[in-house]
C-alpha cells in the first residue's frame, strides 16, 4: 500500500496513456476495416461492370500499405512518441516548479539512480506497450486483408508489404533483423534524450556536457527516422551513452 501511494500518479498517467493509444489503435483498425471493405466493393463492382461489357481490364485492389496510409496510423505513432516525451518532462518539472520537492527526493537514503529510473521507466513502459499493441494491430490488419481480399487480387506478399511500410519498418524491422536492436533502442532513446535535456537544463552550466550528449541523442533519433544505414549501430550505441550519462548526471551533477 505504501508503494502504491508513491507510484499512483505515474501508474495513472501511464494507464491513461495506454488507454488513449489503445482507443487510437482501435479507431485506426476500424478505419482500415471500412476502407478495405469499400475498396473490395469498388473492385468487385469494377470487375462486374468489366465482365458485363467485356471492355474494362480487371480491377486492381490497393495494397495493404495504400490502405494503411489512409488510416491515421502515422499521426497515432507521432502522438505516442510525443506522449512518451511529455510524461517524463512533466514528472521532472513538477519536482522543481510546483515546489522544490526535488530537494527532499535527493536526500532520501536511496541511490540517486532510482530517481532517474523513476522518470525513465513510465515513458519507456508506455512506448513498449504501444509497440506491442501496434504490432498486434498491424498483424490483425494483415490477417484481415489476407482473409477478406480475393486471392487473385492480392498482388504482393502481404506480410512483406506491411512490414516494409516505411513507418512500420522503423519500429518492426522484421524484413531485416539487423535493424531490430536500433528499433528497440529507439523506444528507450526518445524518453532518455528528453530526460537528459531537462536535467541538463536544470543544472545550467554544469549540464553542458549532458546537453551535448542529449544533442547526440537527437541526431541518433533523426538518423533512425531517416533510416540511414549507420543507424543500425549508432542508435544502440547512443542509447547506451545517453543512459550512462543520465545516470552519471543525477549522481554527480547538482540537480537539486
Amino acid at each position, binding site marked *: 500500500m*505504501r508503494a502504491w*501511494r*508513491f507510484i499512483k500518479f505515474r501508474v495513472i498517467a501511464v494507464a491513461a496513456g495506454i488507454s488513449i493509444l489503445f482507443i487510437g489503435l482501435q479507431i485506426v483498425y476500424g478505419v482500415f476495416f471500412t476502407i478495405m471493405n469499400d475498396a473490395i466493393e469498388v473492385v468487385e463492382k469494377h470487375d462486374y461492370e468489366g465482365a458485363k461489357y467485356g471492355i474494362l481490364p480487371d480491377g486492381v485492389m490497393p495494397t495493404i500499405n495504400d490502405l494503411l496510409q489512409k488510416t491515421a496510423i502515422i499521426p497515432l505513432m507521432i502522438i505516442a512518441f510525443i506522449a512518451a516525451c511529455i510524461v517524463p518532462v512533466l514528472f521532472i518539472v513538477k519536482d522543481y516548479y*510546483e*515546489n*522544490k*520537492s*526535488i*530537494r*527532499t527526493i*535527493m*536526500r*532520501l*537514503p*536511496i*541511490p*540517486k539512480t532510482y530517481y532517474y529510473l523513476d522518470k525513465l521507466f513510465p515513458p519507456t513502459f508506455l512506448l513498449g506497450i504501444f509497440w506491442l499493441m501496434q504490432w498486434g494491430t498491424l498483424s490483425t490488419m494483415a490477417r484481415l486483408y489476407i482473409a477478406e481480399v480475393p486471392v487473385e487480387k492480392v498482388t504482393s506478399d502481404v506480410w512483406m508489404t506491411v512490414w516494409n511500410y516505411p513507418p512500420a519498418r522503423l519500429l518492426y524491422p522484421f524484413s531485416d533483423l539487423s535493424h531490430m536492436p536500433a528499433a528497440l533502442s529507439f523506444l528507450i532513446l526518445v524518453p532518455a534524450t528528453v530526460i537528459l535535456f531537462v536535467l541538463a537544463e536544470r543544472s545550467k*552550466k554544469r549540464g553542458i556536457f549532458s546537453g551535448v550528449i542529449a544533442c547526440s541523442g537527437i541526431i541518433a533519433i533523426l538518423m533512425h527516422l531517416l533510416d540511414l544505414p549507420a543507424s543500425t549501430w549508432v542508435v544502440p550505441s547512443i542509447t547506451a551513452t545517453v543512459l550512462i550519462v543520465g545516470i552519471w548526471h543525477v549522481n*554527480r*551533477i*547538482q540537480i*537539486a
Partner: protein
Amino acid sequence: MIEIKNASAKYGYTYGIKDVTLSFRPGEIIGLFGENGAGKTTLLNAILGYITLSEGEITLDGKHIKRKDMTRISYASSEHTLFPQLTADEHKNFFKAFFPRFSDERYDFLMKFFGLPKEKKFREMSTGQQNQLETIFALSQGADYILLDEPFAGNDIFNREDFYKVLLGILEPTECLIISTHLIEEIKNFVGRVVLLKKSEIVGDKTCEELDEGGRDLISWMREVYNYDENRAADVIRVFQKEQEK
C-alpha cells in the same frame, strides 16, 4: 561526527565555500551565521550531497557520506521542499517509509505544539506553517544531525521563542543541531557554539564557554570578527545630509 576537511565548492568561477574545515559532534547546538551569500546554505548543501565539492571531503564518523547515511542527517529549509499535494500525515507515512527511526511521538507532539492541521495539503498551508512542517519532519526523522536552514522564516517572534524552548526540551543528548540563521539575537542563548562565515570562508568558530571565559558576548565577538564599524551608518547619513544641504 561530521568532519569537513578543506572543503571547497564552486558555482562557476565563484567559491560557494572555500577551504572550510569544521567538525560537528553529537550533542552540539551550533549556530551558523554570516551575511547573505557567505556560504551557509552552500555548506549545508555540501553536507547533504546536493552539490559536489571541488576540493576536500566531508565524512560521517570517518567515512565518506553515502546515500544510506542520509537516514542520520535531516534537513529543513524555508524553501518549501515538501510535496504540495500531500497532507502532513501523508508526509509522515512517506518519511516513515524511508527513515526507519522516524519518531511518531515527536511528530505528534510538535504538530500539536504548532497547532498544524494533519489533513491539510502542504500547498494549502500558510508560508509559516509550511516552514514549521518542514522543521517538524527534520526533527522527527530520527537523525543524529539536524540541519536547519533559516527554519523560522515566516514565523512571528512569539512562535519562534516558544519553539527554541521546546527544542531544548525535546532534543536528545546525542542529537546535533546546526541552525543557519540571521536571527542572531534570538538564538544567542540557545546555541552552544557559533560558526561565522564570511565570503565563503570560516572566519570564526567558538563555543559559548570559550566566549564566557574570555569575558566576551557573542554580538561583540561577531562585530570584532566581521570588523563591524559602529559609526558606519552615522557616517553615511552625515555624508548624505551634507549632499542634501548642497
